[in-house]
């Protein structure tokens, strides 16, 4: 990837940079390198030919296709300006290929205008259908372990996996239909997509994800995996499978969606919202109050009705219940015409209940849970106290004041959110500012819980102070400063949480009074072929309540890392970390040390040799044990071109062989010493059909 990016940079730099001076300055003339009266393919590398190489005096060249500045997609080689071999195709239809000469004072002069006709398929401006298929055999051919208790569940094995996919795009007359399907199969049941949910019933060939998106300009319809919602109290950026539609009329936008209750994979329930007891129905109406000034005042209203059964979605794990809720919410985004004052506010009311489902015993035997309606709201107000006239100017200064208020009633809950935390009121004041490249932030916050002051429930108050500073040193020294100068940042957070009076049933030593201070210092540097970073983090939990004043914990973490690319085909990296944890109550100290090194060598475009080494050790004081874990890995992979299409990187095969060795030791003064060793030789073959 580095090599690809570097090549792209070099090619574009050649095009953008002023050309070499020339002795003779005859006017530049341009002739097309293709037949303007004929149709060309979308991936055609069209070219324009100049009568001579361009010089500084000509200025830089700019290539437009219709209204698209495509300069970055073209390269200049001597007298030829040619489209580069990128994955970005020419726009279908008839347009004009225009070459400009742009002077240093931004005067644009047309050098040539050439008709460009790009073929479309069946009248489509864009029509693509890309199937993908790959078969993969992987396994462990040899293995060793000690002691016997370290025997793996599968000593030697061979698994087959298949990966099928289809992607399509069709665009015509302002309409577009795009789709994407991915299917995964495996011979090893434990590797199946839904093994965690269905165990031995999980299908070996299963649908990983799909998405169908129809865009008609003013309306959109989406089926499949998507992220929904923008109300922080009802439904907010929730990933799920479902059906959604949106319609925009003038300054009004209406969106509706029906979703599965959690993110799912698999063939079962392909649409998503088919189970009434495990789905969400939502609609949102968005309105620009002043259509002539978009963004000045925006209002969103959301309705949500949902029910979920116990269980979590793909990539999720949680302690869950059966839940049902209905809610309505509003969101306001507003700013003054000069954007000095900005307001974001939201309100939601949710009617929630845990319906009977028998999971926690016969519901008739449990104490009743009534349906409750609760409110939540927040208001954020930001005022630009000081704002630079030229934001990019090095000496500019800025200062913004933000006031935040949030209140979430006890037992507030929406089925579509793991957050927010209920029964809490928070107020905060923040200052964000900076001078030139230096930016700083200061925040003060207060929070309290048990808002209804319920007797017997602990009530706590929290005071939070945050501060941070960030300085890109190179930017601070101006344009001539070396690029390797570091980016330095520091952050401080102090949290004081304490009981607000006594609570029934709580002994005095159970009432919290804790101050936690957390500081982080980070330094990052980047050079032409390297980058380095270091971070120091320290936290202290200072317990102050009765009988626990000595129960303090102090943690320190130091990490350093270096990445180097000495040659385009070689990547090296190394990192080290030391973590110290001190338990002052027991006068115990634990130290964890880690070192790691990784290297990758690509001797050619198809061979990759990778290696990695990590060693982690943990010791304590007073000494009771010492644990170490060491891992060593070598991996060689070779790509083989497809005999049918040698030019394709997508098609073909790949073989690999990997050797891993791990050693774990636990030398304990309190029990028997333990050493666990294992090594394995793993191989695989992948055949990518298309």
């Amino acid at each position, binding site marked *: *990837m580095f090599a690809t990016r570097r090549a792209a940079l070099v090619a574009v730099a050649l095009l953008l940079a002023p050309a070499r001076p020339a002795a003779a300055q005859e006017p530049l003339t341009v002739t097309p390198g293709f037949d303007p009266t004929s149709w060309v393919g979308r991936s055609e590398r069209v070219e324009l030919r100049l009568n001579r190489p361009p010089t500084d005096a000509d200025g830089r060249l700019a290539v437009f296709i219709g*209204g698209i500045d495509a300069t*970055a997609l073209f390269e200049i080689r001597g007298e030829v300006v040619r489209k580069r071999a*990128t994955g970005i195709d020419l726009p279908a239809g008839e347009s004009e290929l225009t070459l400009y000469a742009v002077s240093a004072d931004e005067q644009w002069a047309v050098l040539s205008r050439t008709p460009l006709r790009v073929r479309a398929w069946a009248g489509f401006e864009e029509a693509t259908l*890309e199937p*993908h298929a*790959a078969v*993969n055999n992987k*396994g462990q051919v040899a293995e060793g372990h000690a002691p016997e208790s370290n025997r*793996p569940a599968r000593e030697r*094995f061979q698994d087959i996996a298949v*990966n*099928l*996919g289809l*992607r399509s795009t069709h665009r015509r007359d302002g309409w577009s239909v795009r789709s*994407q399907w*991915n299917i995964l199969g495996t011979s*090893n049941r434990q590797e199946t*997509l839904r093994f*965690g949910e269905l165990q031995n019933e999980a299908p070996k060939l299963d649908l*990983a*994800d799909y998405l169908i998106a129809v865009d008609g300009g003013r309306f959109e319809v989406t089926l499949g995996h998507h*992220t929904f919602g923008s109300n922080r109290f009802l439904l907010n950026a929730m*990933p799920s499978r479902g059906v959604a539609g949106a319609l925009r009329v003038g300054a009004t936008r209406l969106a509706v969606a029906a979703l599965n209750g959690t993110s799912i994979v698999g063939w079962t329930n392909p649409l998503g919202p088919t189970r009434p007891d495990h789905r969400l129905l939502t609609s949102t109406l968005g309105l620009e109050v002043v259509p002539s000034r*978009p963004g000045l005042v925006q209002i969103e209203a959301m309705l949500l009705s949902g029910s979920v059964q116990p269980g*979590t979605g793909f*990539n999720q*794990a*949680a*302690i869950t219940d059966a839940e049902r809720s209905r809610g309505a919410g509003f969101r306001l985004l507003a700013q003054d015409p000069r*954007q000095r004052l900005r307001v974001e506010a939201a309100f939601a009311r949710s009617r929630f209940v845990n319906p009977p489902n028998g999971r*926690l015993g016969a519901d008739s*035997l*449990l104490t009743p849970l009534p349906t409750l309606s609760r409110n939540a709201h927040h208001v954020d107000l930001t005022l630009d106290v000081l704002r630079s006239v030229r934001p990019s100017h090095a000496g500019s200064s800025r200062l913004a004041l933000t006031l935040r208020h949030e209140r979430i009633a006890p*037992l507030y809950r929406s089925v579509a959110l*793991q*957050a927010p935390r209920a*029964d809490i009121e928070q107020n905060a004041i923040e200052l964000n500012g900076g001078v030139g490249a230096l930016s700083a932030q200061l925040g003060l916050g207060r929070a309290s*819980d048990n808002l209804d002051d*319920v007797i*017997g*429930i*602990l009530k*706590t108050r929290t005071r*939070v102070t945050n501060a941070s500073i960030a300085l890109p040193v190179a930017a601070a020294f101006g344009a001539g400063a070396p690029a390797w100068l570091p980016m330095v940042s520091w952050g401080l957070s102090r*949290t004081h*949480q304490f009981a607000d009076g006594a*609570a*029934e049933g709580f002994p005095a030593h159970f009432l*919290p009074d804790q101050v936690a201070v*957390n500081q982080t210092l980070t330094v990052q540097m980047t050079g032409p072929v390297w980058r380095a970073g270091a971070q120091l983090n320290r*936290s202290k*939990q200072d*317990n102050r309540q009765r009988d626990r004043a000595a129960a303090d*914990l102090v943690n320190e973490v130091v*990490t350093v890392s270096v990445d180097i690319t000495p040659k385009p085909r070689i990547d090296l990296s190394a990192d080290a970390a030391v973590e110290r944890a001190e338990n002052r109550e027991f006068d115990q100290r634990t130290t964890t040390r880690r070192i790691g090194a990784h290297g990758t060598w690509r001797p050619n475009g198809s061979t990759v040799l990778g290696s990695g080494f990590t060693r982690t050790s943990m010791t304590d004081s007073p000494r009771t044990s010492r644990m170490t874990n060491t*891992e060593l890995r070598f991996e060689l992979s070779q790509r083989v071109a497809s005999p049918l299409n040698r030019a394709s990187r997508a098609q073909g095969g*790949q073989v690999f062989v*990997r050797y891993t060795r791990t050693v774990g030791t636990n030398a304990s003064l309190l029990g028997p010493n333990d050493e666990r060793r294992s090594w*394995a030789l793993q191989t695989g073959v992948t055949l990518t059909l298309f």
Partner: protein
Amino acid sequence: MRVDWRRSTSLPFTVAILVTASLLVTDARSAIAQIRVNPTGAAINVQGATTVFLTFGGLRNQVPAEASWCGELMPATPDLGVKCDPRSLFGQLPAGLGPSRLGSAGTFSDIMSVPPSVARRAYLAAGSEPATFFYVRRFVSTTGGPDEYVAVTCRPTGGGARSPLSLTAVTITFDVETPVLHIASGEVPPRFGATLNYTGTGRLKGRWEVVRPGEPLPDTRDLLTEATLTPEERGTQRRYGELARFNVFLPPAGRVTLPGPDPEALPTSLAGTYLILLRVEASDDKEGDSNPVAAGGSGGLLHNGAVAGFPLPALRYVVGSGSSALASTLGSSVPSPLEPADDAQLASGVVEFHWVPSPRALFHRLEVVTYDDASVLEAYTPVGVARYRTPPWLAERASGRPLRWRVVALDADGDVVGRSRWRSFRFVDGQPPAS
């Protein structure tokens, strides 16, 4: 002890005898109870879930059965100990152990996960009764002896500093709207991270690891946090290639986003399916400590910071075939507009756009459109260039209409990997830019 109703002189006297006798029997039974637990009480979040590591000790030919939460206790006669009053039952767990395990030397490591609905019942009961509620585990004798009940006191809180550090919900995702990411060989994946809901406060430490194609897969016990394991199991989980360590402080705020390591550290040269694992190590947390000796077992004090009542999810990505190009990119992998500011008023002439580039992009495309979505200008910029100076005729093409602009990140195939939010601006002829 039996009471003959017919020989009793009066009803009050009979009742008094019955009560006294039952108390005597209860005391006698309690006196021979074997099983102890540590900790004997815990602070529980009544607005959500909480997990606590409990050590039961002194088991003699006994196995754990079901567990219950309730507001009041009653003598378990004729069994041993005290059990839940059925009139105040908040919930009951079936006999399955979940992540709980019998240990050596007559101990039982119990992972008590209080569901949100049980906490909700406890909150609602708190208004009229003492708020403290109980967790009661029943143990069954394998030799025909009486059952034994052991109770743990649950003190209701908001889940802050006195609650044990426990993970109650974990989601691991890439910054892409797809459950399984498909990327090309050699492509840099989008950023990824974990969102965690938790109780308490303390350090969250551990490792990001990756399971490569061909490696044996982790089993369910491998996916538990270390603090969820019995003392004998700790340090024995299978390890995989380490991407990076993490060790961060969690304030008593209940929710945190743990960023993953630099996505360039993820292996993508080899085709196949990979799993990213979040391996959480036990940290020192006073509120979560469990002392096996106090429970009648043996061994040192167990630190249980970051206990979780479930296996952590694994994040899957597939290299070499398939595509996630249509799925929208989220978060920090999306390009972010810098200048001009939203709703800026600009003078006619050259406009310079700036943005924070997407780390996944090989090209960026600047799009300038009217509010009717009519294209006014598009421009491609290569990797490393996050700005664009327009031709001077942009204002002329705008014809006085307000415009919107955004930046689209494209990969090597020209596929969209992320879109920035729209920003608006307009030209004000004859006036200097007012930003």
